[in-house]
């Protein structure tokens, strides 16, 4: 694939693709999508915490080509929350991290929200002094 074609595909998918370089830092291999501007500019991605620990173990002994975590969420400069997933890819002689938006996270949240609100209503006692149906 020509480099410009690769970049066009990455841009269309709105994904961020980074390759781990020799010093443990990551460098982007294609222009970053707008939604990744909210991210830390530290090239070692310290905010990924345990994901990176698991990714290093995965790259050392890959049992598959891809390992994925998430969803994660952050808030952009405008205060909007967005969800994303992070994948470690193990390809011959290359270690990649791929960031992609998770468009299904809100659906998952809506289901969990409804379920938990029901449980919460059952667990939480009413305030004293308020009318109560069970007297």
């Amino acid at each position, binding site marked *: 694939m020509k480099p410009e074609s690769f970049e066009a595909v990455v841009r269309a998918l709105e994904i961020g693709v980074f390759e781990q370089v020799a010093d443990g830092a990551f460098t982007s291999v294609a222009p970053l999508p707008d939604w990744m501007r909210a991210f*830390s500019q530290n090239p070692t991605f*310290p*905010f990924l*915490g*345990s994901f*990176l*620990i*698991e990714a290093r173990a995965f790259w050392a002994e890959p049992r598959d080509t891809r390992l994925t975590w*998430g*969803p*994660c*969420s*952050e*808030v952009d400069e405008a205060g909007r929350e967005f*969800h994303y997933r992070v994948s470690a890819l193990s390809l011959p002689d290359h270690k990649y991290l791929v960031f992609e938006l998770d468009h299904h*996270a809100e659906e*998952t*949240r809506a289901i*969990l*929200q409804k*379920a*938990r*609100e029901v*449980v*919460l209503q059952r*667990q*939480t*006692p*009413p*305030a*004293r*002094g308020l009318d109560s149906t069970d007297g």
Partner: protein
Amino acid sequence: MLGAFAVGKTSLVSRFVTSMFSEKYLTTVGVKIDKKRVSLLRGEMELILWDLYGEDEFQKVRMSYLQGASAYLLVADGTRKETIDIAASLQRAAEAEIGKVPFVLALNKVDLADRWQVDMGDLERAGEWGWKIVRTSAKTGEGVEETFLILARAMASR
């Protein structure tokens, strides 16, 4: 941030990071990542806060998320006694995963004193285990800054 669902983990982070609070409960999906720089006697420290989804019958917390954590904040809801047991269970699981690192139990929602279900016996039991306990309210801000600073100082002194 570890605890049962709807104990106020996200609200505590929001109060600490942005000084904001919302009455509306919005469940967390996955991991919410925030950052906050704090000033300590020996200099500044940047905290990277991992607010993990709440533990319940629908989702179990993936303990491997704790790998690399320097400390953790257990959160329980003073108006729901069962959340203390979940905090205790999570603490045991966390220690099994990452060993002994500093932690604090935030007994949240102290502003709802008229609905408080946690009795002193529960608190004394947790105290006997050597837990540091702080009563907090994400709504009023009571105890919130103090709780995170206790953790930051404990991390700095290690």
